[in-house]
């Protein structure tokens, strides 16, 4: 019966057998797809098959490679010469650049060595590499790759090419921790380059800025003024750039002007920093004079001349040194 139907006329015929077969094959395909999608054992079959398939790919890519070969074979001689010429020039240029780069690298190496062992006029410095930076809101520290083995001592000043970065607050065997000038707990005695006004720059909590909260209302401070270390307090040697005033506004208390300054050192970019080796000469407050000498008639004159300078630095520097060193 079924045979007869199949033979009779396929004109409009839909045989049940054909539909069944279709369903069978579709189901088979579905099973294969699911197995393949789930990455079952099928991948092994694929791997072996891909070995067989590879020559087929070669064969299939023949037309494309043939076209490429033909385009090379039939391309204009002039175009090729031009291209050749251009490539030659490029090669020459690249070689020249490479040579110069090698020279520069050599020079760089030499300079680094020089810097590392340098005993220059007044800077006895040591090169250090920044390992880690911690620039948070309440902590601004960086870790450098020299420690007590390299002769680093607590309190050493860290600078880069543009200015003061901070000071060493903790020394470990091979590394040391540096407190940045922008750390909220840090203070540095500064002098404004233009006017000579002394003040203290604190780190601030709002980003990478320095804060100068106690400038007197009458002081002559403008945005753009440069801040240098004043050398007071005996920790930072004088004359290193620290920052540049950004804005000056009356403080909330109304008693002082408050300045904001941007540090000149590349706090967030520097990779190599310099450690100042010998600490600044103790130019800060002089030792208290021991009233030992009997010649009392000479005493008033020197004490009168030296008394005023120490009094101001003492007032300004006291918070700086205390907060700066007491932190760790």
């Amino acid at each position: 019966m079924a045979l007869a139907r199949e033979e009779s006329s396929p004109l409009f015929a839909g045989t049940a057998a054909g539909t069944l077969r279709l369903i069978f094959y579709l189901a088979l395909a579905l099973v294969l797809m699911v197995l393949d999608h789930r990455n079952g054992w099928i991948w092994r079959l694929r791997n072996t098959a891909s070995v067989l398939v590879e020559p087929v790919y070669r064969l299939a890519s023949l037309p494309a490679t043939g076209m490429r070969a033909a385009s090379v074979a039939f391309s204009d001689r002039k175009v090729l010469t031009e291209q050749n010429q251009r490539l030659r020039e490029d090669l020459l240029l690249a070689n020249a650049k490479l040579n110069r780069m090698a020279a520069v690298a050599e020079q760089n190496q030499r300079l680094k060595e020089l810097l590392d062992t340098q005993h220059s006029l007044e800077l006895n410095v040591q090169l250090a590499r920044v390992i880690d930076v911690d620039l948070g809101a309440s902590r601004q520290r960086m870790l450098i790759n020299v420690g007590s083995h390299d002769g680093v001592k607590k309190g050493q000043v860290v600078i880069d090419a543009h200015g003061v970065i901070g000071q060493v607050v903790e020394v470990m065997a091979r590394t040391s921790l540096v407190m940045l000038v922008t750390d909220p707990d840090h203070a540095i005695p500064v002098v404004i380059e233009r006017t000579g006004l002394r003040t203290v720059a604190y780190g601030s909590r709002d980003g990478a800025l320095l804060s100068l909260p106690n400038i007197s209302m009458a002081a002559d401070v403008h945005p753009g003024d440069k801040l240098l270390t004043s050398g007071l307090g005996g920790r930072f040697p004088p004359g290193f750039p620290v920052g540049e005033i950004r804005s000056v506004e009356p403080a909330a208390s109304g008693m002082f002007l408050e300045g904001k300054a941007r540090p000149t050192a590349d706090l967030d970019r520097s990779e190599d920093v310099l450690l100042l080796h010998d600490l600044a000469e103790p130019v800060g407050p002089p030792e208290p004079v021991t009233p030992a000498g009997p010649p009392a008639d000479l005493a008033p004159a020197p004490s009168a001349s030296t008394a005023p300078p120490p009094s101001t630095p003492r007032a300004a520097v006291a918070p700086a040194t205390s907060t700066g060193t007491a932190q760790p």
Partner: protein
Amino acid sequence: MNKQRIQWLWFAGSLLFALMSMLIPLPAPLQPFKPYWPALFLLYWALESGDQRVNLGLAFCIGLCADLLDGVLLGEQAMRLCALVFIALRFRSRLRFFPMWQQTLAVLALLLNDRVLLLIVRTFAGEALPTASWWISPFVGAALWPFLFLLMDDLRMRLRIQ
């Protein structure tokens, strides 16, 4: 005997050629215009020789080969070609006697149906929806159909094979 072998070679060779054409790398801008060659050749043979040569098993095998060669999900093209061949065989007698333009339209419908199937499979596999250019291929295939059909017929006549 000899003639039969030539016929068989001709048949298999055309299918192999279709698989090869599917693999030929094209420049990226031309890629969406590449017609689905195995479907076209299978359609031709399904219309020409019918059940004697083309059946669902063959379509399934060709599809599996294409899947392996193409590196797509195994069974995807097998399913599509099965569906295509099934429909073509079912309506073979009518399709054969259509004038060429109607036949072309029918081929277009078949190829579009094929793309819809592919879309369904891809959606189930969790792939992103293809762009509009993805739908160009069936139209290119349909546009090539009359030429392919006439060329194959002409070659067959010249070679005097069935």
